[in-house]
């Protein structure tokens, strides 16, 4: 099963896998950041006083959460370039990694929309009222009182979302992006043995996810000072 392990387990191959892991981490990190922006916008739409914005927010969340990420990646990879080519009249191709970041950001945005919305709704209504009686505007209240408290609540689920994104970044191997999963596959093809590179890839995934969990726990403890 691990017949080629001694051949695969070399510094060069480890470096190759580490590079793949870094690409996975980078794509997941970037998608999380952009997804958070989408999440703030989505949550603002969902809690806004405008019916249309609330409807748009709901459609976004339901459509994205109700369809598989692989399908979203495929649509962006195949359909988006055709649409742009059709509109502009010039051949348009998208880089694999860009497709990955776009698809994963949109997907993550839908989940973080719900995380942020529930974080904001979870803050005691009395905090809004206290600010209101002190004469603060809705925006001042949101920025200085509600969001900082909501932020503390959403740190743990956002970390879970980051971990999910790291694992889901393996999906973009389907469109040819060379991240950790593809790197393992390349080594497997090279040595005609897949068990060792896949197990090593699993170790790299675990190193990333466990480190993030550890950092998140420390951050949570730091934020808990005022609890």
């Amino acid at each position: 099963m691990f017949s080629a392990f001694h051949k695969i387990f070399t510094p060069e191959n480890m470096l190759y896998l580490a590079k793949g892991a870094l690409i996975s981490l980078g794509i997941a990190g970037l998608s999380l950041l952009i997804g958070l922006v989408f999440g703030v916008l989505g949550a603002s739409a969902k809690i806004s006083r405008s019916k249309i914005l609330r409807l748009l927010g709901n459609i976004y969340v339901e459509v994205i959460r109700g369809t598989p990420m692989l399908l979203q990646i495929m649509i962006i990879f195949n359909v988006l370039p055709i649409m742009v080519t059709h509109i502009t009249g010039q051949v348009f191709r998208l880089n694999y990694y860009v497709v990955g970041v776009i698809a994963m950001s949109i997907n993550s945005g839908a989940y973080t929309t719900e995380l942020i919305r529930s974080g904001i709704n979870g803050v005691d209504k009395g905090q809004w009222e206290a600010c209101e009686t002190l004469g603060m505007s809705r925006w001042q209240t949101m920025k200085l009182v509600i969001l900082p408290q909501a932020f503390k609540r959403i740190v743990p689920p956002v970390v879970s979302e980051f971990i999910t994104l790291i694992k889901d970044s393996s999906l973009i191997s389907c469109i040819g992006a060379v991240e950790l999963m593809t790197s393992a596959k390349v080594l497997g093809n090279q040595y005609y043995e897949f068990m060792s590179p896949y197990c090593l890839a699993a170790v790299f995934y675990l190193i990333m996810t466990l480190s993030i969990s550890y950092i998140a726990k420390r951050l949570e403890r730091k934020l808990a000072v005022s609890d």
Partner: protein
Amino acid sequence: MIKVEHIVKKFNDLKAVNDVSLEIKKGEIVCLIGPSGSGKSTVLRCINGLEKPEEGSIYIDHELYDENDKDKYNQLRSKMGFVFQHFHLFPHMSVLKNLTLAQIQVKKRSEEDAEKIACQYLERVGLLDKKDEYPNKLSGGQKQRVAIARSLCMNPEIMLFDEPTSALDPEMVIEVLEVMQELAKEGMTMVVVTHEMGFARTVGDRVIFLEDGRIVEENDSETFFSHPKTERAKEFLRKVMH
């Protein structure tokens, strides 16, 4: 100073406040009392604007307190401080920051001035030594004194108290009442929703007794407690003055 005319506030089909009118003069201390669900807190919240009455009008200093006239509304609201039953301090900020936030954001005071004013009020409520603590490190009584100081930092002319001692352990009640008593002595206009009959009797100038969203009896404190007119007030006092 405050004039409430025939306000009605409904929650779904229930009339929590049903045709209430009252007047509060400058420097007066008026206590709203009554059984739970009588609408006393809702009246207080309507006065501040936390609840919008469906009918009736409220005047502050002879000016209509109307949300549609935003500037006027904000200017009139800034004359009122509000103290909640559950304090509603900002848990992610130190005591000092709790007191300076609105001063800086709303009154546009410099951080230095805001801190100076905050420290003055913290000293008045006896909590200057707690200025760097977070609210979770304070007792209920201390939290409520900080909440009072936070309101006072905004220089209100009227203080509205919504059951300020109801969420406190019995031994914490006195420290909050003492602060309120001090304010009363200084001539602050106060409207207090309370179950503290001792406070209403000794500190309050006037008592308004409500039931089912209506004013049942209104009188000066001494007369109300010694010679209540209505049967309902007599029964209520018999139950609470055990």
